[in-house]
């Protein structure tokens, strides 16, 4: 016996039950939306960041120099090579002073420092290095009236300038016993200005930096004293914060390959044209070895 359908109340719309297909489609859409909201970004990352900030100098011609927002130098070219290799997004480089390099890495202001950063055991305890990518020694830059200075003893009684936050101060301090007067100013440009003005007899820091100033101030006859060096070799490395060893080793592996290429040679010769002129055999004395890079990269202390 068939049932008589119950009469619907007047004025009320009939609510039709949604079909099974519609419900399934709705469930798929909701699930996809939730998945998209919770999933990590597909952007490549380095040092835990999707956009890497690099700090570098802006006042060292030939090494890392900025003029009218146009950057140049060995460190800037290395930054471009690293950027191309890693394939992650980079912010525009930010400026850093010599005394502020470690603080910027430890404080997170910068993810990477490429700033003529000498690798030392003390610094390796606080940050990681990838390098060295360049070797240099501490030398002397003299002006046109420094023709009589050819050896260390000729600096006796003379004023020699360097700037704060560098490894150059200590080596110069060892010359005080010889009667050398050491003057420490705030930055490189202050020392160069003092040299051009005749207030100091010489400026002392890494020869690589001095070659850059000599080229920039060729008109003032600034020159690097040949063969006159003090202190231990200075090994430039890329500074990274600790805690990213896998990324650090990846970058170190790339650096070992890059240092052996003609691009490395070309970048140095282009940025520091005075160097090949003063030292035709500069590649053998300034190029670091793979063993040297392995001994200092991504470690808390150098290998013995």
């Amino acid at each position: 016996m068939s049932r008589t359908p119950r009469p619907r109340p007047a004025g009320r719309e009939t609510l039709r039950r949604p079909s099974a297909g519609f419900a399934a489609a709705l469930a798929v859409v909701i699930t996809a939306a939730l998945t998209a909201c919770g999933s990590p970004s597909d952007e490549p990352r380095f040092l835990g960041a999707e956009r890497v900030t690099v700090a570098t100098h802006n006042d060292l011609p030939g090494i890392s120099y900025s003029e009218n927002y146009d950057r140049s130098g060995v460190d800037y070219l290395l930054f471009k090579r690293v950027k191309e290799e890693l394939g992650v997004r980079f912010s525009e480089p930010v400026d850093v002073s010599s005394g502020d390099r470690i603080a910027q890495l430890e404080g997170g202001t910068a993810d990477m420092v490429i700033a003529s950063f000498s690798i030392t055991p003390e610094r390796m305890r606080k940050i990681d290095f990838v390098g060295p990518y360049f070797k240099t020694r501490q030398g002397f830059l003299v002006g046109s009236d420094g023709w009589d200075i050819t050896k260390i003893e000729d600096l006796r009684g003379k004023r020699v300038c360097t700037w704060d936050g560098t490894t150059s101060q200590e080596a110069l301090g060892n010359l005080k016993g010889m009667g050398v007067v050491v003057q420490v100013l705030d930055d490189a440009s202050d020392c160069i200005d003092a040299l051009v003005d005749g207030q100091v007899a010489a400026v002392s820091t890494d020869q690589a930096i001095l070659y850059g100033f000599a080229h920039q101030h060729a008109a003032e006859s600034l020159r690097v004293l040949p063969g006159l060096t003090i202190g231990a070799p200075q090994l430039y490395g890329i500074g990274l914060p600790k805690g990213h060893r896998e990324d650090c080793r990846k970058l170190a592996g790339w650096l070992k390959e890059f240092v052996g290429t003609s691009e490395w040679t070309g970048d140095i010769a282009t940025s520091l044209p005075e160097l090949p002129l003063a030292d035709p055999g500069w590649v053998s004395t300034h190029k670091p070895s793979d063993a040297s890079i392995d001994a200092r990269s991504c470690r808390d202390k150098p290998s013995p």
Partner: protein
Amino acid sequence: MTPRRSTDTYDVKSTGSGSLTIGKVGRVVLSLFAGDVSEFSGRAKRWSGWNWPPFFLVLALGATALIAGPSGPARQFAWVYAAIGTAVVLSFCRVVGVVGDSRSPVPRALVQGSALLLAVLGLVGMDHLAEHGEIDVTGRTHLSPSGPMTRMSAAQIVVDGPAQRSWLRLTVAVEDADPLQQSCTPESELTLQLIGGSNTGRVEGVRAGTPVELPLGGSRTEVRVQVVLSAEEGCLLAVSVASAAFHD
């Protein structure tokens, strides 16, 4: 409180709200803390008196070996300590009758004999080490002149006192003298050469932390090793002796 004295227990009763009642004191407490000891001592009384002399002999041999033992790296005494320890354990097992229930005397004799043999072995071994074992002389070495070394500079490692063995194992440490200013250790190497005597072994290309064996040859009244540092120009390095030991 009404104390009632019995032979070995006391009953204590207290009344009133908030009062604390203390239960029986006596064998209950003793059984909790000293029951195992009393049971053990009871069983020990049943051990045969004949088992004790061999045990005391093993103890005496072991004690003699330990007292007469020379100083030196602990690792070279490991087998001697193991022999003496095993001897004492075996002999004690024999005393307590762990190997004493079977009717045949063979197992008991084997255990006791093994214990004695191991104890003698330990004593002989200790004597051998006193004559030929390794002697740690790290504390008797110094660098002369002291102070940081530079490229191609030379110094001497001096071991105070005569050479008591025929070989010297030397491990030299090299560190940056000024870790704030330089990083020179990975590129540094040493050349070590014995001075004087019939045997002047020379070893080149020594890296810091790598042990080097130097033959001392015949008897020497003193041991001196010349150290020449190879490093980058301008580097200042602190050289020291990480470890030094005489051995045969």
